[in-house]
């Protein structure tokens, strides 16, 4: 399978199953488009008819180009066949090792964001705080079930994890204390709304947190539309200076300024550029996850606008890079040379298998987005996974379990997409959330175009 598209002056051909990316001229683009279904002489005729005045488009040129296409095909870089489906069927037999936990250390929040998928941190339940004992058991559970994995990930999540900061610090201290003995390395992430960030949080996080995710939606009016405190006051003015200090102190360490865009700010690149204007360079902006009935839900009519926004962002990021002040955008961070292997690309996100969420009282769910839905309760950190049928279901929830993905060129970039989004959109974790797919495909087109532009080193098509 191939995918052809034109973007920012580049004609791009992606060979799906090898991962090869080709930048071609318009003649080759047309020839590749016809190659599989058109006899050679017919290709020659059509191309010569389409480009009658081009001195560089002769019968020999067309035939040479076809030879090049056939050479790439022989090298396994064009029209490559799918040889991976059999590997996916073996996934039910794969190990039950766990390598990442999302610790819900606080099912409570000091903000009252209307669009929060976690319903103000409570996950449709009661307010709760994780005790040190539950957290410690979760760390032990992770280590015990991590098999030969060395790198283990723990995300301190909520609600707002800084509302249980002392426990976070004690859990980090405990995990570090057993790293050597257990031959494990913990990577911690803190996701915060910023309200309680202070110098002590910054110092500790810079020592211990592999990554810090700071929630900021962009422009003041956009951020404050949803991200209010319980008195109804916007939080922008309170959190922005703290995030600026935090980000500066991170230095080369990883962080993301992460925003959510909704129907109300489909011009979200203005929010991303606002983040950049505030001095942030590592940025992420996610489409809102909510009921289609919610007024902030994205609509079909929004899609063309959003597609254009992603293009604007890609072109502007290339400009910034050219001018020596680059920013990164999470969804455009693809490394074509050192990206994930095919196993990663077909095995799904890992929820319910190698990744689980832990509630404040120690229950296990496939991921943070399933917390609060009792049908998806998997077990707990003392007894482990008890609902093994559910685990097996998630093990098989890979790209080949979704027949809707069969003909999708982007399936080895999303691995079949988010099971939680699929569940909420279709009622099945093996369904597809088509709206999200459309946005994802657009983002991948932009990301691949940017990599091609950088690789060629000459952004001749940039506007």
């Amino acid at each position, binding site marked *: 399978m191939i995918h052809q598209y034109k973007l920012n002056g580049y004609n791009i051909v992606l060979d799906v199953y090898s991962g090869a990316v080709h930048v071609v001229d318009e003649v080759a683009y047309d020839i590749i488009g016809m190659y599989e279904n058109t006899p050679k002489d017919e290709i020659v005729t059509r191309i010569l008819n389409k480009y009658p005045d081009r001195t560089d488009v002769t019968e020999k040129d067309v035939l040479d180009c076809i030879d090049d296409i056939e050479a790439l095909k022989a090298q396994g870089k064009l029209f490559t066949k799918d040889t991976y489906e059999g590997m996916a069927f073996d996934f039910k037999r794969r190990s039950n090792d766990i390598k990442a936990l999302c610790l819900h250390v606080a099912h409570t929040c000091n903000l009252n964001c209307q669009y929060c998928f976690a319903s103000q941190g409570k996950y449709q339940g009661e307010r709760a705080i994780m005790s040190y004992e539950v957290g410690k058991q979760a760390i032990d559970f992770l280590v015990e079930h991590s098999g030969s994995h060395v790198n283990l990930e723990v995300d301190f999540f909520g609600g707002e994890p800084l509302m249980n900061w002392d426990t976070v610090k004690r859990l980090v201290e405990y995990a570090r204390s057993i790293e050597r003995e257990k031959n494990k390395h913990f990577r911690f992430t803190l996701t915060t709304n910023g309200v309680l960030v202070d110098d002590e949080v910054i110092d500790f996080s810079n020592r211990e947190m592999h990554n810090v995710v700071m929630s900021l939606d962009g422009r003041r009016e956009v951020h404050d539309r949803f991200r209010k405190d319980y008195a109804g006051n916007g939080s922008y003015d309170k959190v922005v200076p703290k995030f600026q200090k935090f980000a500066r102190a991170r230095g080369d360490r990883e962080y993301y300024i992460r925003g959510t865009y909704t129907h109300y700010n489909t011009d979200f690149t203005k929010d991303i550029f606002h983040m950049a204007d505030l001095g942030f360079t590592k940025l992420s902006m996610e489409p809102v996850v909510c009921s289609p009935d919610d007024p902030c839900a994205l609509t079909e009519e929004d899609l063309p606008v959003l597609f254009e926004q992603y293009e604007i962002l890609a072109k502007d990021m290339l400009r910034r890079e050219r001018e020596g002040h680059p920013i990164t955008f999470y969804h455009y961070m693809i490394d074509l040379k050192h*990206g994930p292997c*095919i196993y990663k690309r077909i095995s799904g996100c890992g929820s319910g298998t190698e990744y689980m969420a832990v509630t404040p009282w120690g229950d296990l769910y496939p991921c943070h987005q399933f917390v609060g839905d009792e049908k998806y309760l998997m077990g707990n950190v003392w007894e482990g996974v008890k609902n093994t049928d559910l685990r097996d279901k998630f093990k098989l929830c890979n790209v080949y379990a979704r027949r809707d993905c069969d003909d999708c060129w982007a399936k080895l970039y999303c691995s079949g997409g988010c099971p939680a989004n699929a569940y909420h959109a279709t009622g099945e974790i093996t369904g597809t959330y088509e709206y999200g797919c459309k946005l994802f495909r657009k983002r991948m087109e932009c990301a691949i175009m940017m990599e091609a532009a950088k690789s060629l080193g000459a952004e001749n098509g940039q506007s």
Partner: protein
Amino acid sequence: MKRIVTIETRDLAKSAVNGGCGECQTSCQSACKTSCGVANQLCENREEK
């Protein structure tokens, strides 16, 4: 090739031979939390092919 420039990419078919070590970051454990992508995960296998 006159009309085709091939960008250097990891050969996914070859990665089937010695991939799958599982040391890479979990897909949703970084900045997104509400959507899935694997393309932006870096391979942690020093001997990747």
